[in-house]
Structure formats: structure tokens, C-alpha cells
């Protein structure tokens, strides 16, 4: 947090190159967030880059007394993703990194199938529920931070999160046996 503030001050003082420090520090979580909010997106990297450029252009308006830099950045990301989804075209499936766990081929195939089911279920969630789930469960933000980003109360975040979890877990439920 303090490191972010020091970097922001340097950028605002004219040291443009120091913005790279902020990008390197936050690029992983930000790309993960954008990738999760833009399902199967082929151009999520453009949106992620656009988020950083918007942050740079509006850096003077960042108020550290209101939110952490990461929360502010994620708010921009959330809004940019929402706009991108509005003008979304059919896109190629996104690719996520593979885990390096060792499984038998059968386990691996089954796991892959489950992951695909979860990816599809995440994509099918309404935007508000998806954002709440990704921010709280994948990015590990507090409910207060999620509420700040979404502009809603903690109670509303909890409710969206509960519904999102329910739908995602339902994606893992075994299909009923045919009669």
C-alpha cells in the first residue's frame, strides 16, 4: 500500500518510467480478474492494458484515503469489463495455465471435464454475481473491498456470493441417473 503510494507520487512528479513498478506489481491479479470477468475472451489482454492506461491517465484523481490502489484499479477493471461485455462478439476460448499435479489419465480427463463445467457455469453467471465471486473467492478481497468496487453493501455482496457459489457447486453435482 505504502509502496504503491510512493510509486504513484513519483509518477505524478513526472517519473513516467516508475509506472512500470505499479504495472509489474498488479499485473498478475489484474489479468486474472479481467480474464475471469471476460469469459472465453480473445481480447482480454487489450482490456487489461486499457485498465492500466486508464489508471495512468487518471492517477491524479486516485484518493488513498478512500481505497487501496488495488481496489481502485479493480474498480476500473470491473467497469471496463462490463463495457467490453456489452459490445462482445463471439470469441475464441481463453486458455488458463495447467496445474502441475500428477494424475492418472482418467482422473485428469475427469478433472478437465469438471473445470470446463465450472468455467461454463462461471460464464453463465449474471455479471454482478460473477464479479462478486471472482473478487472475493479468486482474488481473495474482503467483502468490504468487493462492496466498494461494486458500489453495494456488504449484505448485497454476501447475497450475490451465496447465489454464485450455489450455481457453481450445482455445476459439479452429478447428473441424475436416467430412469
Amino acid at each position, binding site marked *: 500500500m505504502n509502496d504503491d503510494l510512493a510509486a504513484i507520487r513519483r509518477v505524478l512528479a513526472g517519473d513516467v518510467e516508475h509506472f512500470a513498478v505499479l*504495472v509489474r506489481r498488479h499485473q498478475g491479479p489484474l489479468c486474472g480478474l479481467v480474464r475471469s470477468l471476460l469469459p472465453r475472451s480473445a481480447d482480454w489482454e487489450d482490456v487489461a492494458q486499457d485498465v492500466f492506461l486508464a489508471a495512468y491517465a487518471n492517477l491524479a484523481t486516485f484518493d488513498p484515503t478512500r481505497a487501496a490502489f488495488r481496489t481502485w484499479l479493480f474498480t476500473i477493471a470491473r467497469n471496463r469489463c462490463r463495457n467490453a461485455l456489452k459490445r462482445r462478439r463471439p470469441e475464441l476460448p481463453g486458455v488458463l495455465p495447467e496445474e502441475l499435479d500428477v494424475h492418472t489419465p482418467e482422473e485428469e480427463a475427469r478433472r478437465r471435464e469438471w473445470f470446463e463445467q465450472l468455467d461454463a457455469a462461471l460464464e453463465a453467471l449474471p455479471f454482478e454475481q460473477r464479479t462478486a465471486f471472482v473478487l472475493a473467492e479468486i482474488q481473495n478481497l474482503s467483502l468490504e473491498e468487493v462492496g466498494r468496487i461494486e458500489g453495494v453493501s456488504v449484505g448485497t455482496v454476501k447475497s450475490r456470493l451465496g447465489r454464485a457459489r450455489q450455481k457453481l457447486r450445482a455445476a459439479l453435482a452429478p447428473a441424475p441417473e436416467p430412469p
Partner: protein
Amino acid sequence: MSPDDVFDAWKRRRAEAEAPPGFAERVQDAVRRRTPPRRFPVLRVAVGVAAVAACLFRIAATLGLFLEP
């Protein structure tokens, strides 16, 4: 693998998603092509204040025509 394990593994995989190679450099290149952010909108505030002052002066001058003895 239980459904809970699958669910946690899936969340972990999503959380571990990384930026593509060279991403920070591409952002920084785009940043360099942009004008540096203004620390404070000093010029904009100064222009606004000057405009308000000019407006008040004109109003006072116009009112002065009618208020002269």
C-alpha cells in the same frame, strides 16, 4: 477427488493466472506515448477562476451604468 477438492483446485488455477510475457513492457510503451498525468488541474482551475472574475466584472460594469447618480 471430491467436488470440494475440484472446486478449490479450479479456484486456485484461476487465481494463479499470470500476465502474458512482455505485458508490462507493452503497457509501459503505451504509457510513454501518452501525455504525463497532471498532478493538479492548475491550469483548468486558473482558467475557471479567470472566467468567473471576468463575468462578475461585466455584471458589475453593466449594473454600474444603472446605479450611477
